[in-house]
């Protein structure tokens, strides 16, 4: 106590030993007598603390949301991931139990995670998912960038119409749109009939239930998620920068390469993440348009949960997927923040 008071900077040295004066914390270091500004500061403090509590509420809402709908479910999945599979209801062993009636026992198993490494089904599915998602993202970027650029450079009226066209597919259910591709890509589908009518091919091509169909489905479904953030970042660009570059001798393509594209990279990253992340875990599209030999991780997850009723393995698959996506993102964010801070 006396040490604390000394460091508080009392005007008179505090007596040491029994009977030392106990000074209220907030008065330490202040001369005796009424403190100035006490009255004056009061309403200001009230307002300040009110503002503080509002700030807390504003922060608490998204935090509570994350807690309720992400962290708690994730904790449950994590818990299941460390349990053993049993034929029971629920189909996994409890983490905490009283095996002999009076001792609490914690049963944790790493087997589920270990099996992800042992059985190459999982690894292949992961890699396949990453590959399909990555290639789809590249195609979304290649298709979406010119579209976003065209929208950003269009006149105000055309721009709104073009944006509406981009968003329009969302007004029909996702599943219906994927089903529509069945009709297009089928051996007797629209595309094959058109190709034969145009004499490009003589016999129908097998397009459905191939990786090609999966790519078409994913690129089609996720293209708006690429276009919108790209458009947002391209639309913000100052066109006088283009003029300045042209004035300094840059031909139109050089202007794009040196100015437009580098300045739109935040949009490229945002769009790519919005396509890549859900595409890795995509279940419906490969299930409807793909074939069984090219399994993606979403399919594996579904099978473990519903066909095998092996909830612990399914949970381990889900956790591994989450970590595989989140860790590179955190790393990326960290590196980017570091780059921005650098002089």
């Amino acid at each position, binding site marked *: 106590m006396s040490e604390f008071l000394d460091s508080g900077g009392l005007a008179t040295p505090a007596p040491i030993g029994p009977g030392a004066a106990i000074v209220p914390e907030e008065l330490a270091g202040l001369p005796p007598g009424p403190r100035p500004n006490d009255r004056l500061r009061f309403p200001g403090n009230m307002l300040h603390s009110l503002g503080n509590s509002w700030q807390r509420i504003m922060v608490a809402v998204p935090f509570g949301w994350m807690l309720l709908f992400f962290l708690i479910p994730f904790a449950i999945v994590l818990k299941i991931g460390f349990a053993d599979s049993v034929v029971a209801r629920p189909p996994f062993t409890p983490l905490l139990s009283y095996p002999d009636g009076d001792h609490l026992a914690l049963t944790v198993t790493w087997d589920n995670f270990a099996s992800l490494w042992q059985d190459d089904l999982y690894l292949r599915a992961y890699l396949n998912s990453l590959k399909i998602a990555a290639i789809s993202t590249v195609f979304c970027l290649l298709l979406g960038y010119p579209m976003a650029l065209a929208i950003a450079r269009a006149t105000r009226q055309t721009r709104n119409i073009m944006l509406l066209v981009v968003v329009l597919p969302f007004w029909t259910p996702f599943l219906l749109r994927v089903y529509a591709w069945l009709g297009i890509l089928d051996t007797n589908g629209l595309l094959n009939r058109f190709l034969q009518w145009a004499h490009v091919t003589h016999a129908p091509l097998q397009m459905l239930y191939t990786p090609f169909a999966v790519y078409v489905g994913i690129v089609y479904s996720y293209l708006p998620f690429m276009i919108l953030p790209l458009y947002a970042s391209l639309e913000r660009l100052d066109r006088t920068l283009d003029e300045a570059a*042209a004035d*300094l001798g840059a031909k139109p393509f050089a202007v794009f390469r040196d100015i437009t594209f580098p300045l739109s990279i935040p949009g490229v990253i945002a769009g790519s993440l919005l396509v890549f992340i859900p595409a890795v875990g995509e279940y419906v599209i490969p299930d409807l348009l793909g074939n069984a030999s090219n399994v993606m991780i979403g399919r594996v997850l579904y099978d473990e949960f519903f066909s095998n009723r092996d909830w612990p393995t399914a949970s381990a698959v889900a956790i591994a997927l989450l970590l595989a996506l989140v860790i590179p993102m955190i790393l990326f964010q960290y590196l980017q923040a570091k780059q921005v801070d650098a002089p």
Partner: protein
Amino acid sequence: MAETLLRPDTNLPAGGVSAAIPDVTEPWRDSAAKPFIEIRGVSKQFGTFVALQDVSLKIYKGELFSLLGGSGCGKTTLLRMIAGFETPSSGSIIIDGQDMTGVPPYERPVNMMFQSYALFPHMSVFNNVAYGLKKDGVARAEIAKRVDEALALVQLRPYAERKPHQLSGGQRQRVALARSLVKRPKALLLDEPLGALDKKLREATQYELMNIQDKVGITFIVVTHDQEEAMTLSTRIAVMDRGQVYQVGRPIEIYEYPNCRFTAGFIGTMNMFEGVVLGLEDRLLRVKGKEGGDFLLAHPGAPVPDGTPVWVAVRPEKIRLSLTPVAATQNMVAGKVKDLGYFGGTTSYRIDVGDGRLVSVNVTNADRALALRADWDERVFLTWDPASAVLLTE
């Protein structure tokens, strides 16, 4: 030399201006001189809006030529046409003997400094300045050398590795200047170069800009709405309004000999008296004032038939103010002091000469005892010399 007088830059060595720009004292007076940039009958329409109407200008090598006018007068459109960002609806632009019709901006031998500076935010100061040289395929070592020179010229050498957002407004302006100068263009186009700076910095930068132009000897074409800026900076000014050029001339010509009511009113303050030409009188022109009084003034040169409606224009500082009636039969107007402002060196009066018509008068306070010559509501008499007034016919 008038420009030397108008450039109160004490940092320059005596005669520095004329020494730095050799053969460009007044090339526009020489009919044989070849213009460096020629604008021939250029018009521009945006839909139904006429931005430029048959504009012709001749700009000579080494000039600091200003396009002066209010917003929407077409000055920026004209500058953007020289840079190649707009194409004329008709007419042509010739730079150094080469017709620029159909030549894209990236192939034109001119560079522009944008009003917003348009610095590339993702590039360092060095790379911003180096950009134009890189596009020209200049060798790396040469680029480094020339960028360094350009940054030294604008005193920004220590800032080469900074990003534009780490610089102040004045520093950004100088980076923009360095970037547009580093390619050694045949002409530098400056769009409101000082517009984004605060007043104090603007004045300092104004003289710096002139110094730099003297050093590099490149032709500058400046767009500005600020008449003081144009007067101080320019070798010549083109006064523009509603897509037309009203007058082209040296600052002193524009100020002392405006050729039309627009120029007279736009540059500084001008008092105008309406009247009708009575006739010639001993080489001077006599004008009968519409509101009474006779005016006598120098003949404008071009013949003016008797009976022509005209305006007699007099600058506030050229009017003498007297408290006692003056025995003059012409160039004399009586009135009452309505407003006065004492500015120390000068006192500015506004005199009501009847029917609420106001005449501005500036009196230099050369004599301390007479500093405040007339008080509010006092009756005063205004006179001026025939040589001080200008005749305007339109």
